[in-house]
């Protein structure tokens, strides 16, 4: 995983998505990583994120809920054609802002965390390694999809996650940076999804071993049954 430090916040490119951690304990950070990864994989097993964005996002949230991340509110909207141009960054930040609005209602908190999300995208955009990674991840996809998750831990221990995602029928041209890619609304359909989730540590703890076990059982089965004698060349 690619990790970049930004003003004390941890930004991670995980399975092609951006995760931003604000003040999370290591334990909760691991919980987010594994829940997000498991949920992304589960959603991608059923839907293509670039062409079935809404179904993918709903499947992702449903799996996250099973992992202990309980959705407070959720939206998935088509971006209005009145906007002249879209950019990946602007849509992501807008989606995160919507998710945070569902979760907190506190204007100063929303403003602060939206700023964190915006800075995180800038940080990644300014990191040649992370941009190269994202460009490689998205180079072969049809259309565009990306999600960002901002996770915060309050002083009282409460953990909130705001997830924003975009889906567009447009793809960036070769050799351009995905994060600063802009496109016109007149030639494409673009959607943003937003959700706020609260973390229920107790629920996660009850499924954590199952998550590991599910992967673990498959691993044992593979190790015991898969052939390991190389084929002979003709």
């Amino acid at each position, binding site marked *: *995983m690619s990790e970049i430090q930004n003003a004390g916040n941890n930004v991670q490119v995980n399975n092609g998505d951006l995760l931003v951690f604000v003040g999370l304990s290591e334990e909760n950070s691991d919980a987010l990583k594994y829940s997000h990864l498991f949920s992304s994989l589960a959603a991608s097993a059923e839907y293509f994120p670039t062409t079935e964005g809404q179904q993918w996002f709903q499947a992702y949230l449903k799996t996250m809920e099973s992992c202990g991340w309980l959705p407070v509110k959720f939206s998935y909207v088509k971006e209005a054609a009145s906007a002249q141009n879209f950019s990946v960054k602007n849509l992501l930040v807008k989606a995160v802002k919507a998710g945070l609005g569902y979760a907190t209602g506190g204007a100063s908190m929303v403003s602060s965390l939206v700023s964190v999300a915006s800075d995180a995208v800038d940080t990644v955009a300014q990191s*040649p390694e992370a941009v190269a*990674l994202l460009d*490689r991840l998205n*180079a072969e996809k049809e259309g565009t999809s990306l999600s960002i998750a901002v996770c915060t831990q309050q002083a009282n221990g409460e953990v909130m996650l705001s997830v924003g995602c975009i889906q567009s029928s447009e793809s960036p041209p070769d050799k351009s940076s995905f994060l600063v890619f802009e496109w016109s609304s007149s030639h494409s359909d673009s959607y943003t999804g937003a959700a706020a989730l609260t973390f229920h540590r107790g629920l996660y703890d009850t499924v954590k071993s199952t998550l590991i076990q599910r992967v673990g059982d498959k691993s044992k089965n593979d190790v015991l049954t*898969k052939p*390991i*004698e190389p084929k002979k060349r003709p």
Partner: protein
Amino acid sequence: MHTKRFSLVLSGNCLLLLSADLDDQQRQDAIDAHLFCWLNASAEFLLLSENQQWHGTYMDRHTGLGWVVSATGERINVETATVPFTPLAIAWHGLGSLPASLLPTLNAALTMIQALPETHPALQALGAEALERTQAPGVKPVTRIALELRVVLPGLKVLASSVFLETHQCLERQWLTQPLEIEEVSRQVTRNFTGELFPDVFAGIRTLLETRLEPLRAMYVMPLNVREDSL
């Protein structure tokens, strides 16, 4: 904390660059976790003549063993920008986002690989797995190459890059570092992935894996006998 030293081990068609900060168990895990995936993919498909299917199986086995793959990439095009345009340089170029702090020692490791004599037993073994030349009546001979480089850091964290090539060029014994003629290359696929081993999952299969691989390990795994201190 990296001490910026690496040792080199051949496993199948993969050159593993193992951080000297790995303990003995981690080194063993890194080698076994690669070898199993390589052997199973090679049991189901031919690395050189069924490469697309081979690679799909290879990556599936990684996930199955508990590798959390956080990034994958694949490009199918003849990349002319790699200088020099050699199999080793193309694979190296594909590693891309290496931590800057490790670059000097990794570049030193690359130089060491380039300096190995073509008669080195590990290079002979690599050539046997990674290279083939086929000739059908009335058709220009084709040489296929499949090579992977894998940097293993404590964690276990891995950055891997591989290249699959088809060329009509006749390659010599020093094929690894031989400049390729671009106009003769008919197919080039470069792939990379970043991942880390899910320790809780791997702990449950470590002993099974070691037992199953025991009779085969010596046939496919070979150190390159380069002193770690020199890297």
